[in-house]
């Protein structure tokens, strides 16, 4: 065998300060292609800050993020999406007044090219592209079981389906890495099980997954690798079993034992 393939996502000594506040301090971890990695930690631990740096919404103060060996720390969010990292939002940010289909069509924008001129004359290639966009958007609705909502406004969907629509929309950008910010927030037990199955299916389709989650049961069920952060630092990394036994993790979550 030749060299092992380098990790899909490499985070090296990542630090982010807001004014004098150290939100993330010297965090490093790798994410191997094909895994489901969970990023967990108590509230305010810096998970979302890390997440926002990976997706380009924040720029790191120092440190490096490499995706497929390319530095992405200084790219803007749309460039990062174009490079192959798609995201969802912690609080749902669908295009509320657009239909489900139109929401998913957004992900195809950066993969299509037709400009003003083609739109004006409705050239053959423009019409082909438009029907390709439509077909592919419909496909992603179908994958997530949302085909019935095609022409429904996003805001009229039930909450759980809005979460799914956000995932469908993210998938339509054809990412290599899908990042999910608390995808199970607000879902009931049944919906969460559904979601777990769906995320596994997406991974089996060849997409690597990074997720932040509060629902411990879900994280332990789903993730193959877990990174634990607390107070902006990484305190543990490993499989769910390893992390659960880690004394630092227990301390972070349950507090210190009284002496």
């Amino acid at each position: 065998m030749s060299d092992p393939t380098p990790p899909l996502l490499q985070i090296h000594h990542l630090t982010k300060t807001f004014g004098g506040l150290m939100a993330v301090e010297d965090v490093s971890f790798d994410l191997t292609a094909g895994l489901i990695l969970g990023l967990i930690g108590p509230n305010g631990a810096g998970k979302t800050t890390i997440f926002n740096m990976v997706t380009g919404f924040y720029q790191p103060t120092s440190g490096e993020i490499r995706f497929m060996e390319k530095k992405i720390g200084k790219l803007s969010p749309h460039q990062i999406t174009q490079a192959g990292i798609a995201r969802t939002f912690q609080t749902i940010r669908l295009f509320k007044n657009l239909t489900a289909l139109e929401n998913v069509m957004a992900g195809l924008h950066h993969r299509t090219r037709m400009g003003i001129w083609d739109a004006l004359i409705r050239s053959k290639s423009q019409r082909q592209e438009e029907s390709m966009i439509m077909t592919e958007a419909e496909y992603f609705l179908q994958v997530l079981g949302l085909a019935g909502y095609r022409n429904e406004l996003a805001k009229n969907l039930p909450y759980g389906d809005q979460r799914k629509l956000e995932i469908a929309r993210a998938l339509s950008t054809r990412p290599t890495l899908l990042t999910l910010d608390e995808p199970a927030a607000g879902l009931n037990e049944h919906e969460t099980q559904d979601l777990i199955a769906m995320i596994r299916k997406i991974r089996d389709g060849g997409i690597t997954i990074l997720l932040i989650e509060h629902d411990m049961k879900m994280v332990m069920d789903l993730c193959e690798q877990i990174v634990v952060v607390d107070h902006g630092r990484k305190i543990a990394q490993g499989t769910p079993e390893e992390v659960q036994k880690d004394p630092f993790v227990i301390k972070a979550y349950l507090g210190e034992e009284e002496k």
Partner: protein
Amino acid sequence: MRIAKIQASFRRYPYAWQIGLIILAILLPLPLGDYYRTVAWRTGVYIMLGLSLNIIVGYAGLFQLGHAAFYALGAYTAAIMNLKLGIPLLLTFPFSILIAAVFGYLITRPILHLRGDYLAIVTIAFGEVVRLALVNNIFGITGGANGLSGIDRPNLFGLELRQPIYHYYLMLVFLIFTIFAIRRLENSRLGRAWMYVREDEAAAEAMGIDTTRVKLMAFILGSGWAGLCGALYAAKLTVISPDLSRFLESVVMFSIVVLGGTGSIPGVVVGTLGMVTLPEMFRPLKDWRDAWMGIAMVVMMIARPEGLWPSRRVRLEIRGDQEEANPIPAANS
């Protein structure tokens, strides 16, 4: 509601309405005298101005309260090229569009990251800067406060366009093209991108859409189109002044879009009839226009914030949750 009924029939028989309206627009000036032909011409120009501003305000959801500056730039480009370089007026039109579009790019590029009210303030300032530059006879070519006069009449294959009715038809050609083009843009990849940006800029960015570029496209297209309107103005009046870039002009254009119905082509037409045509037809109304504009604004914002003839989407965005509990009956759509 009556407007809703008209809207519905519009959607059901689009071709009948479109052909009917085009025939009406062609026949309209025939029975009229020169004064009303000029009113009709002005209406058409303001509809085009409204539509150009609608790209920026209605589709991309950005504030632009200095739109008249690009109207003025288009008019001055046509006038200066005609007077100083002797270029026939109709051939200056592409340059008017180009110059206005280039300025649209240069001016808005550095301020695109501003949002809402901040963007509005900067655009107001820009309109004033253009006006003052023209008043101060910048580069010695704008003629100062008096503006420029003696612009050639446009000449179409030997036919000198002197009568208002010729200008009306010249305007109509551009107007029909404008409406056609904007309808196509609305339903294109770029049109959707504007919609995404208007709805949620961060989410659009996360979908891989270069939101800066998309917003710039709105400003460039809108500004260029306003430049064309300026050239049409210079061609008809043959006299132009810095007043073209007055703040009040920008406010009239903004009101046309907002009162008529943000993001909606028929809305802009309705808005123009209210803001421009009626005051021209009834003199007393014109004297009171500023007051009537203010009152109309206040009443509309309270009673019908989405405008008289809104696009369905913008209506949803503005009315939002208010209507969720009380959905519009299905028979309407």
